[in-house]
């Protein structure tokens, strides 16, 4: 028996089998990659998010795999010019998908702002306090500041100013910063002042010129208006209790008692130092006042049921809407139109507000359009299965084309294009 020839044949056969095996494995992996790629594209992960690796540094790169709500890894390794490169090939500006998770990591707050005559979605990264601007048309994200302010729990922002609230030794610390000119490193300066302690609620004016806040005094709480840096404070009103949500609107200042399921709450406009009732003694009251007009969306949570109401004007009778959600999940379109968009949970447990505020319950929302003129509500967007959105702090841009919100499940930032 010629063992040498036998071994050679066996060897050749083994090599051929190995090649077939590797080929099959390659085809298998390619199929899996294709499926994953398709899934990612459907969820909007094909958008060219700039890299934050290297000298700029960011929590984006510090957290290796991001935090997809589906638990899968998100590819943040695209180059900064990724979007542009694809646009050169297609001669079209690529745009994000209709539902786009703008920031996978937790944010402290966001707002639509006008920067160089284009609309940007500005947000503050919770871990660093860095300010980012997102071009909502192209999806391009740019970090604006390089000043580290760690663990920002809540933030509000306007074109120029950013309010950041952190917690130090159990006390809320509020910092009012202004985004200045760009430096040589490409980042803008971010200087400001720490506002007085014990601020219970704060809201910047839409025109960026001032802020309104509620601060606790010895016996009462004061509603104070001041310049953005906290200077020149003027008391708007004195109230006997301090548990309020505050809304600084274009033409008025509105306060609403903080809500709990089944507990009566009221909301007021502040007029000449007095509280003028908007809504009185509603169980589990939350409100969404129109930013420019007098219309109001408000909701009740009796503990067993949640109901949303529309009040077109202060003197009009409220009309119950067909959708069950809380007003905190609603945002008005700007302008005089009575159009609002709401996240509407597929289901809500009893005592919803109490569980929601404590982080014991989250919802899976669909997006509805509320047309106040007719008192109608229409579902306009349903996320695909497996994507859960718990809408918090929603906002609509000035064009009425985009709705942004924080996902209460993980504090990530999402954008939905309202018009296709």
């Amino acid at each position, binding site marked *: 028996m010629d063992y040498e020839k036998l071994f050679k044949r066996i060897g050749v056969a083994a090599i051929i089998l190995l090649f077939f095996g590797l080929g099959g494995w390659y085809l298998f992996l390619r199929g899996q990659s294709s499926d994953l790629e398709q899934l990612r594209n459907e969820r909007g992960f094909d958008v060219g998010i700039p890299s934050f690796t290297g000298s700029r540094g960011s929590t984006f790169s*510090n957290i290796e795999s991001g935090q997809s709500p589906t638990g899968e890894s998100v590819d943040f390794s695209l180059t900064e010019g990724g979007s542009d490169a694809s646009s050169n090939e297609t001669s079209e500006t690529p745009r994000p998908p209709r539902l786009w998770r703008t920031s996978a990591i937790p944010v402290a707050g966001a707002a639509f702002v006008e920067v160089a005559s284009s609309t940007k979605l500005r947000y503050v990264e919770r871990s660093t306090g860095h300010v980012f601007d997102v071009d909502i048309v192209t999806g391009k994200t740019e970090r604006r500041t390089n000043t580290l302010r760690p663990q920002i729990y809540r933030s509000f922002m306007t074109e120029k100013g950013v309010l950041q609230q952190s917690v130090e030794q159990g006390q809320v610390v509020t910092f009012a910063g202004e985004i200045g000119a760009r430096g040589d490193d490409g980042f803008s300066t971010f200087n400001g002042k720490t506002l007085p302690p014990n601020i219970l609620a704060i809201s910047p004016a839409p025109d960026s010129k001032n802020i309104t806040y509620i601060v606790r005094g010895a016996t009462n709480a004061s509603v104070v208006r001041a310049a953005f840096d906290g200077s020149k404070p003027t008391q708007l009103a004195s109230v*006997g*209790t301090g548990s309020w949500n505050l809304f600084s609107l274009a033409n008025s200042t509105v306060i609403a008692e*903080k809500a709990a399921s089944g507990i009566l709450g009221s909301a007021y406009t502040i007029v000449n130092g007095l509280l003028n009732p908007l809504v009185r003694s509603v169980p589990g009251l939350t409100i969404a006042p129109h930013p420019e007009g007098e219309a109001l969306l408000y909701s009740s949570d009796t503990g067993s049921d949640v109901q949303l109401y529309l009040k077109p004007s202060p003197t009009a009778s409220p009309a119950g809407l067909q959708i069950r959600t809380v007003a905190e999940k609603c945002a008005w379109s700007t302008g005089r139109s009575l159009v609002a968009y709401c996240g509407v949970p597929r289901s809500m447990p009893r005592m919803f507000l109490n569980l929601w505020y404590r*982080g014991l319950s989250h919802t899976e929302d669909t997006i509805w359009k509320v047309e106040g003129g007719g008192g109608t509500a229409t579902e306009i967007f349903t996320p695909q299965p497996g994507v859960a959105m718990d809408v918090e702090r929603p906002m609509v841009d000035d064009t009425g084309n985009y709705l942004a919100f924080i996902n209460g499940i993980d504090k990530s930032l999402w954008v939905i294009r309202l018009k296709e």
Partner: protein
Amino acid sequence: MRYLLWVSLLVVVMAPTVYAQTLFIDGVSRPLTIALDPQYPEPGETVRLSIESSGIDLRRSIVVWYANGREIARGDDLTEATVIAGTVGQSTQIEVAATDQQGITASAQATIIPAEAELLWETDSFIPPLYNGRALPGSGTTIRFQALARFGVFPTPEKDLIFTWYRNDALVQSASGRGKSSAVFPGPLLFGTDTIRVRVERVVGEGITEASATYTSQDPQPLLYENHPLFGVLYHRALQGEAQTIESELKITAVPLFANTRDVSNLSYEWKLNGTSIVPSPTEPQTLTIDAGTYTGPVRVDLAITSFDDIYLHAVGAWNILFGHTAGSVLQRGLFGNPNE
């Protein structure tokens, strides 16, 4: 002139927002009493009017109702009618006249002056910083109230108002009085429910209104949150029941929601890991760092929160944390029941 001898008796049932006046004339008129429900109507509220009489048989009478001089209802045995109250401070004069088959008449008047009030309140029980909801009273906490009342277009100074406070329908004389728009009361006993009511009336002029608030004492609830090194305490995701993490070290912070304290570090925290007591940090006893090292598997966390100042405070909770779970990290997988999983 004996038929012209009128003996009159004026009975005025006075309430600052509602004036029910009963007139009767011997031989001609009989007593008639008018009642309003609610007694102190709010603006725009539907007011149910009803009459009673011991001197005239209303079942055999024609009853006519007037509001501001305009007839609003007429009929036999029509002892009830409704009227919509006006705006704040807007007076509505109600008149009712009944005539029986013998021609005996009875009449009454009432004045409705709607006013409105709200009772704002807040408690000093503990809630985490920037908590979005309202603090609810726990055992031993106190509650501060502020009454807001409106009697007309122009505000009435508080010094011109008399506030009468009731706790569970018992008059609280010490808190009541002219200008006393705010009051502080102890919270209800454990598992108890309290109703605070305030009645506000003007010193001069007409008007009275009421507001009330009802709340139940909350058993302080220990909530557990991940205290993330980058993001801080993840208050938006409470740990519930079973939790999983691939991390070998996890920092957790307990929140004694609605406990009777302003400084949670003053409370006593008894931590146990798998049944073994752990001595917490003296400066931050509400936070515990679990270093699992190379251990993989479940860790049972037991927590009991008590207070030297509040013997009723005994908040307990238990959680299971599975270390070394490979399905995903704390954040990726939603350690605390992420519905996206």
